[in-house]
């Protein structure tokens, strides 16, 4: 039986963590993810979980503690945002190269500076090639569902990679919305017990983890990480299918909304997708064939699959919720256009930087993107700004 509730994205994430009941949670508070370890520490205090809660002195230590715990054979989790993630950066790479399926809640916020506590994806984008699986969530429901699926994906024997579940700071993390929750027992059953193949506290098979790895084998080990990332695609789909059987909620690598006959397509991630869906429904009543691709799985990137869905589009707009300072396009734009090129999909494609530092993303802005797409001429300036004040 599912439980009808109303929760913020942070509350939903904390409840997912309570139901997961990990062995170790190590975290340092940072807005807007602070509430997650805050609520979770209450569960620890009340005895609702038997987790070892490590109140570390920094995010670097939070990730280090998770690495130590996970290497020992425990299930470890953390939560952070923006500069907290940047401060962990060194250990983020080590977690994935040691093949430790740590799960992190990343509440997306603009990286300083100047100081800004509001949402954009610059934090996630700065670790996009760190070897972590990255799932994005439109709503509190998706943040919760992705978290429930996270360990099954990360801990799968063909994967063994850390995983982060992203959601937009404040927009979903602090907004109360309807949600359907699992019963605790159902989560327990779905996730199962963590049985790592190799771990430090296994007296029968003593091993060393994270040793020096020079010319002889580092390359091969990186190739193995690549294989694991490749395997993750199938595992994500399998776990999502099993999840759908339980809940009726369907998750794939990306969501297609009104894409069957779409001529004008927006690609985006997280909370903006809901706003785009509203605009699509309105434009469709005017006869505009508008569609949306919402990325759920950003790493591993489903480039080939996305390129295929864009084959019959007339024009595509890729929305990057991050400042684009390289003059070659945002991360999502680069990934998709590169996949389109290698898949021989040639459709005029433009890129918008938008929603920076919590700039509100309105239906009017999204509608203007579809209007731009309808009048787009090939090779027109692909690099644009949406919702930027020009006066």
């Amino acid at each position, binding site marked *: 039986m599912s439980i009808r509730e109303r929760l913020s994205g942070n509350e939903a994430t904390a409840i997912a963590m309570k139901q997961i009941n990990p062995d170790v949670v190590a975290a340092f508070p940072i807005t807007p993810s602070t509430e997650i370890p805050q609520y979770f520490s209450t569960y620890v205090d009340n005895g609702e979980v038997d987790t070892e809660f490590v109140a570390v002195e920094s995010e670097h230590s939070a990730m280090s503690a998770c690495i130590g715990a996970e290497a020992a054979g425990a299930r470890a989790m953390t939560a952070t945002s923006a500069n907290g993630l940047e401060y962990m950066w060194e250990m983020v790479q080590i977690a994935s190269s040691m093949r430790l399926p740590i799960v992190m809640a990343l509440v997306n916020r603009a990286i300083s500076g100047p100081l800004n506590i509001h949402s954009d994806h610059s934090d996630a984008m700065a670790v996009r090639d760190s070897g972590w699986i990255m799932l994005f969530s439109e709503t509190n429901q998706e943040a919760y569902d992705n978290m429930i699926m996270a360990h099954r994906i990360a801990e799968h024997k063909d994967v063994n990679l850390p995983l982060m579940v992203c959601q937009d700071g404040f927009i979903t993390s602090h907004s109360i919305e309807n949600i359907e929750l699992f019963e605790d027992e159902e989560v327990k059953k779905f996730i199962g017990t963590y049985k790592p193949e190799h771990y430090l506290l296994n007296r029968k098979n003593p091993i060393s983890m994270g040793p020096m790895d020079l010319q002889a084998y580092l390359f091969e080990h990186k190739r193995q990480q690549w294989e694991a990332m490749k395997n993750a695609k199938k595992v994500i789909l399998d776990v999502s299918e099993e999840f759908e059987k339980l809940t009726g909620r369907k998750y794939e690598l990306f969501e297609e909304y009104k894409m069957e006959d779409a001529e004008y397509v927006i690609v985006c991630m997280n909370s903006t997708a809901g706003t785009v869906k509203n605009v699509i429904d309105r434009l469709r009543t005017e006869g505009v064939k508008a569609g949306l691709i919402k990325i759920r799985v950003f790493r591993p990137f489903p480039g080939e699959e996305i390129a295929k869905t864009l084959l019959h589009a007339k024009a595509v707009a890729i929305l990057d919720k991050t400042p684009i300072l390289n003059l070659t396009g945002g991360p999502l734009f680069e990934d998709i256009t590169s996949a389109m090129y290698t898949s021989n999909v040639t459709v005029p494609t433009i890129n918008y930087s938008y929603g920076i530092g919590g700039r509100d*993303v309105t239906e009017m802005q999204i509608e203007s993107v579809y209007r731009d797409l309808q009048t787009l001429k090939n090779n027109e300036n692909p690099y644009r700004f949406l919702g930027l004040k020009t006066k």
Partner: protein
Amino acid sequence: MKDLIEIRWHGRGGQGAKTASLLLADAAFNTGKYIQGFPEYGPERMGAPMTAYNRISTTPIRVHSNVYNPDYVVVVDDTLLSAVDVTAGLKEDGAIIINTTKGIEEIKPLLKGYKGSVYTIDARKISEEALGKYFPNTPMLAAIVKVTEIMPDADFVEDMKGSFKHKFSKKPEVIDGNMKAIEIALKEVKKVQ
């Protein structure tokens, strides 16, 4: 009630507008609706103008932006009338509810020609009478429920009993006062335009 109503709250930091918007979301949720309740976070300071929002709908809510064309506006502090454009985008078939002791002739010039309904309530008097302290958010919450008719008064009162029991589990002595504030506010909110 319409299929979707959108509400904007104007208050000052510390007056509880955010809490009121979350309690309103709670109450509407308990009637089976789809809801959103979220504050627009800025640099949070006591006394600084702040905004919070609600959406209440009969169908799932997908939009994730602030509310620009509210059906209702709640003004928790009447000094905001001259500081903030409280009627911006407010629908003419909607209403504005203001915590004030002033009459319509004094308020009207501050509403920039707004032609829709105007309600007032003296939340200070109610709060001080019921709670002995000035917490305007509880009377304002009752006022918006009354004006929007999202649920019958009796259901709302019953629902708030549960909410307050939960919210004030560590200071149960304020529950009765808050319930009293709600009951008075439901009676005292009045249409002045």
